[in-house]
């Protein structure tokens, strides 16, 4: 017994730079990593490359990987066949306004749920939790009937209003506020600070990372939001980017327009990709909430 154990140990321990160790690290560690990364990046790289090609290089079966004469013509064409700059502006406006209001509402609601006394706040919190599970898609038709009836077709407020109530942000912030030390707030209360001051002078500054998470997730969801803007807007001048891209893909005759469509895809995808690259820690944390500590 003891001899076999003794024989096993030297077999398992190898010099760090032995050939076996290196091949093992490469095959077991790097190959799968690189493969997984490529599966993600190649389609996106293909999108960017194609958007820089001339129509002749796209509508051909003699494929060349890289554009021979990189050109921004697809972007120009996209902007002339549909009001693309307007789509971008609309997306920026809707995302900015909706995100600011949603974050504000989430912060004050979560503060109230944790720090302000009220008889039914457990029940209210439960209602918000349940709302988290109601898919927005199911509510699209009744909300359309209501908003259209109020004259909200093709307006910014019509796009923004139904999505403003925020269960996700409220929930995330409430869970975070529960972990804050009560003693800081108590001493502020004794010093005479009212709720409003306690919220913005104490709770807000020490919760910035969680608030950033909520803000980023909200920005990403608003920017990508599709089904609601798709049905509430039919005037090209009021369309957001995803809806405008739909118009572009409907209007242009299929294969001729791939370059233009790729240019459109770049404009809707790349801003989020940049935000994600810079702040991915917060976004991943927010979107995978609830999974950790199982």
């Amino acid at each position: 017994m003891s001899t076999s154990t003794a024989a096993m140990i030297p077999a398992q321990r190898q010099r760090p730079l032995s050939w076996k160790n290196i091949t093992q690290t490469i095959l077991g560690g790097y190959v799968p990593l690189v493969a997984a990364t490529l599966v993600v990046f190649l389609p996106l790289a293909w999108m960017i490359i194609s958007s820089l090609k001339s129509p002749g290089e796209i509508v051909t079966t003699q494929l060349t990987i890289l554009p021979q004469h990189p050109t921004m013509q697809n972007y120009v064409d996209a902007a002339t066949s549909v009001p693309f700059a307007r789509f971008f502006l609309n997306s920026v406006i809707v995302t900015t306004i909706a995100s600011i209001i949603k974050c504000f509402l989430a912060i004050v609601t979560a503060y109230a749920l944790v720090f302000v006394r009220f008889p039914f706040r457990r029940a209210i919190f439960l209602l918000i939790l349940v709302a988290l599970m109601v898919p927005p898609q199911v509510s699209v038709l009744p909300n359309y009937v209501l908003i259209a009836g109020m004259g909200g077709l093709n307006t910014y407020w019509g796009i923004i209003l139904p999505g403003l109530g925020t269960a996700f942000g409220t929930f995330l912030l409430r869970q975070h506020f529960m972990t804050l030390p009560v003693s800081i707030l108590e001493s502020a209360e004794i010093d005479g600070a009212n709720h409003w001051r306690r919220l913005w002078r104490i709770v807000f500054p020490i919760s910035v990372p969680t608030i950033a998470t909520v803000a980023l997730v909200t920005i990403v969801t608003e920017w990508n939001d599709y089904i609601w803007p798709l049905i509430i807007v039919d005037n090209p001048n009021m369309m957001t980017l995803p809806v405008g891209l739909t118009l572009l893909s409907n209007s242009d005759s299929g294969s001729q327009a791939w370059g233009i469509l790729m240019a459109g895809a770049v404009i809707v995808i790349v801003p989020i990709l940049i935000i994600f690259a810079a702040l991915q820690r917060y976004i991943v944390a927010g979107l995978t909430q609830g999974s950790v500590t199982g």
Partner: protein
Amino acid sequence: MSWLDASSAHAATEAMDEGDDGGPDQGARPGPGAGRRGRMKPPKSGAARNGSRRRTAGKYWTPRAKREAWVFLALALPNIVLIAFFTYRPLFANMYYSTLDWTLGSSVATAVGWGNYVEFFTSSDASTVLGITAIFTIATVGGAMFLGLLVAIALNAKVKGQGFARSAVFAPYVLSGVGVGLVWLFIFDPVYGVLSWILRGFGASSPQWINDPKLALVMVIIVYVWKNLGYCAVIYLAGLQSMPKDLMEAASLDGAGSFRRFMSITLPLLSPTTFFILITSLLSSLQAFDIIRIMTRTGNGTNTLIFESYLQAFSTYNRAGYSAAISVVLFVLLLLLTGAQLRFVERKVHYS
């Protein structure tokens, strides 16, 4: 889902209530920091607290409590009203609409009772739509979870660039489904797509991804798995990284190989993670819309419940009542899943 296990959070709320109201129960009032400690204890440890609570119950609406209540309403009411109006009201409105024969935009509607449901379930629509929904949901959830686990295992290797690869794999999950759908539509294009070019290189001709209904469904599933795989991978990775090291070491000292260790230790210990991913993925797959809509505009073998409901109301037919009935069917399905989650999450899958 840790956040559904509200008991610890509940204890904290009570502890804070106690600290908040001062007044008659000064003696029982916990000192600074007690709220924090209270959170760690199970709720029933506060027998003394319950006693003091009963004593103050009679004086609930002191002027101070009233002022607090007003502050609460001022802060929370706007959000609550919005949620009630645009999330809860539509649920009931849908149930009402589903009993109507109603063309969207028309001012007349006839009540038809269960008519829309009867029509849906007796026509061929039900088997088609439910079948497609089942195939799409099972394939996307199964595919993303299986590949996600494989990627998580790869990411778990301690090599340089692991953090970068983790972010890269997650990236598609945050991208616009419309943009992603268009990119893949171009890749799948049977004539000009890069996939058909590769296939031609092998002497094969490209399948008709877009025109053939069966292949259109496969195409949409592939793209959806590509977009959601990173979500599963990142959560599985967190699960893998919280594996108890001592158990693994003990098993390998006992001579268990790495495959054996994975099957007998890692996989069972991952079951809470698996269950969490399973439920959240099922819910989001059942709601998948943007990729399906942009890749198959009018539905071609890709009519899942959510897409069929959209097409009925907003595409050609404007059949609001029928669409609402399909939405209700979808909602009931989601409700059953959520119920199953709440029931099983505590019982089935805890090892610690």
